[in-house]
């Protein structure tokens, strides 16, 4: 079996926890997010004819990108960068976090996710137009499940290619 650690990163309320909630195996309570600042979930996927088990570290969202505990990101093969399509400042926060990871840990493969596609009519168009191509991001909706499987397939593929 092949294993990889991946992280979910983004501002509070962008839907990181909801994204994983439906599609992963969970045993730990969400309280861990507020107490420890991280919760570990698991998902096994078939990627490029291999079974890959993703250990998904869901990091508690912080308003201040400086407060994201990078300690939890160390050892990750890739990460998912989540922003809320309706709130432009969540894109900026996510971009700051991405730059901090680049600077302090080194460039890691990531997949951008613009979440809440069920509310696409309320999306902030300038932010979406700027970051969607810049990150090569996917549109997801934790509420309807749209794009979520694809997101995990993509992060699994990136993580697999990043492994030695």
């Amino acid at each position, binding site marked *: *079996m*092949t*294993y*990889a*650690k991946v992280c979910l990163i983004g501002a509070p309320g962008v839907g990181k926890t909801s994204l994983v909630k*439906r599609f992963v*195996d969970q*045993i*730990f309570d969400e309280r*861990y997010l507020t107490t*420890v*600042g*991280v*919760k*570990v*979930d*698991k998902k096994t996927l078939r990627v490029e004819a291999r079974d890959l*088990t993703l*250990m998904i*570290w869901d990091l508690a969202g912080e308003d201040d990108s400086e407060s994201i*505990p990078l*300690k*939890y990101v*160390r*050892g*990750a*093969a890739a990460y998912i960068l989540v922003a809320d399509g309706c709130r432009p400042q969540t894109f900026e926060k996510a971009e700051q976090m991405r730059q901090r990871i680049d600077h302090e840990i080194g460039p890691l493969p990531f997949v951008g996710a613009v979440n809440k596609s069920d509310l696409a*009519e309320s999306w902030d168009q300038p932010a979406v137009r700027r970051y969607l191509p810049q990150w090569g991001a996917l549109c997801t909706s934790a509420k*309807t*499940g*749209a794009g979520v499987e694809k997101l995990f397939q993509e992060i699994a593929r990136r*993580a697999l290619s990043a*492994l*030695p």
Partner: protein
Amino acid sequence: MSVVSPLRQPMPPDENMSGSTVGPTSEADFETLRNLLLGEEWVDLNVLRKRLRDPELHAHDLSLVLAKAIVRASQRDTKLRSALLPVVEDAIRISVQRDPKVLANLIYPAIGGALLKSVASLLEEKLEALNMVVEQSFTLRGLQWRVEAWRTGKTVGEIAMLRSLLFRVEHVLLIDPRTGLLLARRSAPGAKIQDPDMMSGMLTAIRDFVADSFGEPQNQDLQTVQVGEFRLWIEHGPLAMLVGVVRGPAPVELRKVFRQALQEIHAQFGTALAEYRGGDVSSFVAAESTLERCLMGTAPATATPPKYRLWLALAGLGLAFLFGYWGFREGQHRRSMEIAQQLNQEPGIVVTQMERRDGKLQISGFRDPLASDPSAILRARGLPENSFQLSLREFESGEPSLIARRQRAAHREWLANLSILFEENSTAISPLAVTQLEEVAKRLKTIFKDRPPAQPVIVYGSANGTGATNRSLAEARAVAIVNLLADLGVPRQWFQVSFRLSEPSGDNPTQRRLARRVYFKLEEEP
């Protein structure tokens, strides 16, 4: 001389001739003359000058003699050592300030063994003292310990320590501290664990959290976690972490066993551990035999045998009593075992301990919330309600039948929360809805794979408003969904079409949108 002097003291160009015509010719002449006078030595001189001025070449030349020069200088006197001392001290200080782990990792193999030896000698002293006490005691148990010590080659003290503490190492995990990934593990027979992969990740996260919260003082890693009757003993090495899940009061000596195992693993898999960044863990399978040795101890006994003095055991009356008592206990024990067997055969129930206390049969263990009711099973077995007490903790069983049931429950929940939305006055199925329905079809087929639904799945169509038009629209939406699901291979007879109408929801676009939907209602699984 008449040629040299004008070159050594060149005239200013304006006063005599133009510099551009005289300069190069004179320089060339001088070069020719220099070659004539100095020949090869001039070439050598140029090479040497270049070597001295080029830092790269100079460093290269110096590197060839540096080692020899240091040896000579240290043989001659102590000046070099004195000169280097503050530099080396400073370098070490900077290294420790920057990352204390680097130096700690370097000296770990040397210092780990020495520490172990000193701990072992301390423990030996304690065991020696215990030996004396045990050897002087004359009980049945003391005799059993002596026989076991003789049989296993251990000291009586060691056996006494191991036997008087009822503990068991249930699981041993080898974890990569960087990624939190589980590299290898071993479990005692019958011991259950929810999900060791997730446990490894979370434990690593908590370790990081604790280190952060307490400012990470040197070598103050998380070492013990107490969870109910379980204790997690954590040994940290520079490249891997060993976690023992221990039940009952384990002797401190067990730490030594864990530490030794971790050192062995470091020695055997040092390179693989250092290079691991995630991925395939099969190269650590061989570490399992080392982990296996950590699975020590015995499960807490069902009852503690009473102590008898040997002289009493030798007396005929005593013997008769003893055999009688044993017979009685054996009968009780056999009956308990039969019941335990019965419960253990049930998917999702694991009995770990059974004892008769306060006139009741106390049964402890684990039960999956989806497993059958254990009280009902025991009553069916003929045990009255008040003759037993169950204390079963919840756990997630790995039994295939329960895994399947759990999956079905998750699918049902997913379906119950799903809404398929429609445009205004439309029964057309959007591309997003098609994707959703493909998932619906997949999940329905999984739920009803073994037997079709006893009650049909109700497909409710809804529309924003009341009246005959809205009713037809709502029904048409539900029918469209059923048609598509039938095309996707779900039998049409599994469904029943219905509708729900609501009062118009005004101008709120979200509410209006949600009112134009189709959703499902499934009966609970029996």
